[in-house]
Structures are given as C-alpha cells and as structure tokens.
C-alpha cells in the first residue's frame, strides 16, 4: 500500500528565507528554486495569507559546470547546521564509495526545526540531447549521494528571477513549459505516494501544475498568458539550440489529451492535485481547470506552434 504524502500549508516567503539563509553566500548565485515553492513565492509573496501545500523544495544547481562543487559545499553546510537526512520512504541512507551510482540517494534534507518540508538538490542536464535522468556522484562529509538531472529542467534555468534573499526562483512560464514537454501524453506511471488519499498519475499531477500556473498567472495579471509564447520560444532556442523546433509540436499534446471529454477522470486527478497543491487557497473546479486549459491553448500554445 502506498503512503499518503499528505502535506501541510507552508508560507513560501518563510521557507524561501530559511533555505536562503542556510546556503553559503558564495554559492547562492548557483541556486534556482523550482516547483511549488518557486511558484508560490512568485504569486503569493505579497500576500502572507496565501500559502502552498508542498513538502519538497527543489533546488536546482546551475550552471552545470559549477553544480558538483556547489552541491558538495551546500550539502556540507546544511549537514554542519544540523539539517537531517529525510528518513521517510526509501533512499533514506547515504551511500559510500562502493555504492553504485544508480543506487545512491538524492540529497533530501529537513531543516533542524521542522519535518514539514525538505530540500532536494538537483541539477540541469549537460547537453540538449541529455533528455533522460542522469546521476553524478556527490561526495559529502556524510557520505555519497546522487546529483541528478532531468531532460527539461534546463528550461527552468532560463532567465530566473532573483529574490531579495539572494537565491533565484524559476519563472512560472518556463516551469510550465518543462512540464508540458515532459508529458506529451498522459502516461500510466503513478506517483510513488498517495496525494491526500488518492493515487494520481504523474502526468496528471504535472499537467495540473501547468494549469495551476496558468490560472495564477491570469489572476495576477490580465492577459499574462499572451506573453508566454515569446518567453517559451526564447527559452527553447537558448536551451535546445538545434532541436527546439522539433520540440514545439509536443508542447500542447498533453493538454489537448487531458481536455478530451473521455479523459475527464484524468482532469479530475489534475484538479485534486491543484486543490491540495498550488491552488490550496482557492476553490478550483473542474470547469475552471478546463477553461484554463483552453485559454492556455489559445493564448500560448497555438501561437508557439505557429513559430515552427
């Protein structure tokens, strides 16, 4: 039976500040926060009443060439400040020099005073053709870990937004693009744990995230989605200089699939993840999510598709 990865509401500003204060100054410029916390900070920083429901704070180490050095320094500083290895679930022990690379855990650390969230260290792929998961060995004072990268994470590295805490957050539009490219179809793979009591397909969680980002972007600024295609195109050209035009046709296919009336159960799963994730402070409905998907198609995806 899967564990329920129930999460508590956290304040994006407070958590971001905690993370930033624990990062050595010399390496702050190497950190880009991605995922719910980055989105939460971008959309809710000026309203302390709005919180997000997340457990993992994904820290992208960038650029790739400095990632290993920065990762080791950051992990060692956090260990020194009594951050604790996450013990829940599998991958809860550090490896050693004999542990095969694919058996090493990722660095996942709780702050000393809280088990409600943890940071996870990731990096960007080495090249544009490196689209699968890749691990590199990270040697720390507490053992060996993996610093892993995924194909489209490099998009989150494009033009990040600097925060007043000295670390950066990824742009909502580039995070959305990475998720869209990662899920051109609704796959069968489910999340390792339950989300608020429900088993959810990974694609539905990530496509739901895209819709939540689009909804929040429109709520923050009228017509915000109309600006996304130009950012997407620039990010694709910068991070995938030779294959960007081949990637464009897959940007919209996952969203089109989830909009198919026969896939309403998948949209329902996406809604569930929004209700218990980024849109926890709102009251999203299936209809709202459907409309948001249609607006995203018309305002952002279709104009991008015209660029090929």
């Amino acid at each position: 039976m899967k564990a329920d990865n129930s999460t508590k509401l956290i304040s994006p500003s407070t958590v971001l500040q905690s993370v930033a204060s624990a990062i050595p100054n010399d390496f702050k410029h190497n950190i880009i926060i991605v995922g719910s916390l980055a989105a939460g900070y971008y959309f809710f920083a000026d309203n302390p009443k709005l919180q997000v429901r997340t457990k993992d704070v994904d820290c992208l180490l960038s650029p790739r060439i400095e990632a290993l050095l920065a990762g080791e320094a950051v992990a060692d500083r956090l260990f020194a400040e009594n951050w604790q290895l996450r013990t829940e679930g599998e991958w809860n022990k550090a490896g050693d020099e004999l542990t095969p690379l694919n058996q090493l855990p990722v660095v996942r650390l709780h702050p000393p005073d809280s088990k409600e969230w943890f940071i996870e260290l990731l990096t960007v792929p080495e090249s544009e053709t490196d689209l699968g998961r890749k691990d590199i060995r990270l040697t720390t004072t507490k053992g060996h870990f993996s610093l892993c990268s995924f194909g489209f994470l490099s998009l989150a590295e494009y033009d990040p937004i600097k925060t007043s805490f000295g670390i950066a957050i990824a742009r909502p539009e580039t995070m959305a693009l990475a998720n869209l490219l990662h899920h051109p179809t609704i796959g069968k793979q489910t999340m390792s744990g339950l989300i608020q009591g429900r088993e959810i397909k990974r694609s539905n969680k990530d496509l739901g995230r895209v819709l939540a980002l689009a909804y929040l972007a429109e709520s923050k600024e009228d017509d915000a989605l109309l600006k996304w295609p130009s950012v997407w195109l620039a990010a694709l050209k910068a991070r995938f200089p030779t294959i960007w035009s081949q990637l464009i046709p897959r940007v919209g296919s996952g969203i089109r699939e989830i909009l198919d009336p026969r896939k309403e159960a998948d949209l329902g799963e996406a809604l569930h993840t929004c209700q218990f994730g980024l849109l926890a402070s709102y009251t999203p409905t299936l209809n709202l999510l459907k409309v948001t998907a249609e607006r995203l198609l018309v305002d952002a995806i279709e104009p991008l598709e015209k660029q090929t």
Partner: protein
Amino acid sequence: MKPIQYEVPVDNLPGFHVDAVSGNTAYEILLETKDARRLRTALMELASVASSSDLRQAVLVLEEPEISIQRLLKEWEGAISVIRPELSRRLSLFFRRSGEWSGTPTTPKNDEIQLLEEIVRHETSRRPIGVSRNTEAHYEILRILIHQWLLNRGPISINCLMEMAGSSHPTVSRSLERLEHYLKRYSDRSIELRIFPKDEWGRLLAVSDDVRGTVRFTDRSGHARSPESLLHRLRLLQRKDIALGGTLGAKHYLPSLDLVGNPRLDISIHTGRKALDLSFVKRLDPALEKITRRDETPTLVIHTIRRAESLFEPDGSEIPWADPVECLLDLHEARLESQALEFINSFPTTKNHPL
C-alpha cells in the same frame, strides 16, 4: 473537396432523405439542438441508413449543440451499445461547439472539416430565420436613411441606396412606400428623411435582436475576462469586418456621454449575405458561452450587419467603429435609455431640435 448532394433519398427507406451525401458517406445535420431525444432518434435513423443503403459511412453532424459534451457522449455510447457492432463501426458523431470541431470515435480531419462546414452552411441557409428577408432588408434601408439623416448628409439617390443596402429595386421601392410619411422625395430620384421615423424606429427596436442576428455570450468559468481584455484580443485578430459599437462606440462619437465603466463589449460583424461565423469568439476567450436568456448579463454581444455596405468608420490600423445608428441600437439593447437619448440628440440634425 468531393462533390456534395443534398436531400438524397435512401434505397430501401421510402420517403426518407439524408441531409447530404458526399462520396460514400451520408450526413445528417442537427442545428443547435438541445433535445437529447432528437439526438437518439437521429442516431437510430442513421443506423437504418447505414444498414439499408450502399453508403459505407453515416455521420451525424451537430452544429453548436446546446447539450453538454458529456451528455452527447453518453447518448452516443447508449445508442452504439444497442446497434450491431458491424453497423456501429460505420457510424460517427461530429460536433462543432464555439467554432471548434470534435467528434467520436474520431475527431474530423482538416479536409473533413472543410466538407462539414460546407454542409452546415448549406443547412443553415435553408433554416427558417426569425424575420423574413424582406423585413431584414427594410430595416437595413431604414438604418441607412437614419444614418444619412443623423449625420446631415443630405439626400441619397435610390440607386445609391440600392447599392448600399444590397437590395433590388422592388425591395427598396416597397420599403420606401412603407416610409413614405417620413420621406422627402426630389426630382432627381433622390430621397431623404424629413423627420426621425419614431414609429418605424420603435418597431425596429422590438425586432432588433432578430434583424441584427444578435448573439450574446457570458463567462462560464467564474473567472471572467474583462471587456478590455476581450477588446485587446479582438485587436490582435486584425479583422476589418468587425467593428466596435455599444458604449465604446457611442463614447467615440460622443466623448462626453454620461457613462462610467464598460460592462460589456458590443461588436458588429459585417457578413453581407454570408453565414455568420462565430469561431473567432473562442480566440477572445474559450470560457465564453452563448446565452439565450435575457435575464443573464452578457460579457460579449455580437450583432450582424447584412447590408452590402458596412458603414463602419475606419480608424487607421485599429478596429473600425460601428456606425452611430448601430451604437444607438446597442445602447437601447443594453437598456441604457437615458444615454441613448443623450446620444441621439448629439448629432448635427438633432442638436438644435432634440427628440
């Protein structure tokens, strides 16, 4: 595109005609249906067509159905489950909602969409409309004459009126006879209104929705886009056959008009005799849905101009303006009666002799 035959009799089904046949496919069309029973019947009829004729495929086409997609699919699955599999494989359901084609078990491809649009256009042109062509033409002529009169443009020749209205001589003559009481006729066969035709205007207001093919849309998401946002998107379309009317148009002609805010966007589309294509509404906002109840507040209101000349006022590269008469009708339609009176009394003809 393959040739299309309309109203084709079906072998072995005496007295039954399918709406269209192209190649070896039969098409039945339902326009704006809200009746699930009618849908079920049509599916069963199509199954009979498929089993009784040499036609290999049978397609039910729904143009802007007023039934939810979930309900449509449920009806489809219900019907298919009681039809023999070798027959059900030959049936399809295609539907267009807010200008977007979809279907089951497959979505129509681009070449099919072209064919479907032609068939729907044909069916739409046969459909009885709320007002007759003659009534429609009469009110187009009336609006042209009021436009001339309001802007103090002087007499207009009957030939010119025919050209502007896109109407024949007998149609224009009939209309002018009806307006005789308000007309001044000149020896050079030109005419003009001598006074504002209040009675005819009142009649026009009563049938304005039908005459102008008014269609209303409202937000169904609970997260409505503002009229300004819709306007911004309308600008991006760069359409010259669409003009701004309503409060924005009235403010353009009379900046001092007593109006605060802009509760909705009124636009006029110049279609001439072509069918109205509303597929662009989705580009303004996919959350907009057509409403028919007058007690619902619309976000977007679209009026159709069927005369030959639009009378739109160009505005450089911007969206053109609907003519003042359309703007005036829009104000009445929005129940802005005092503003409508203020507006009509601001023109050269009425300034010194208010109505």
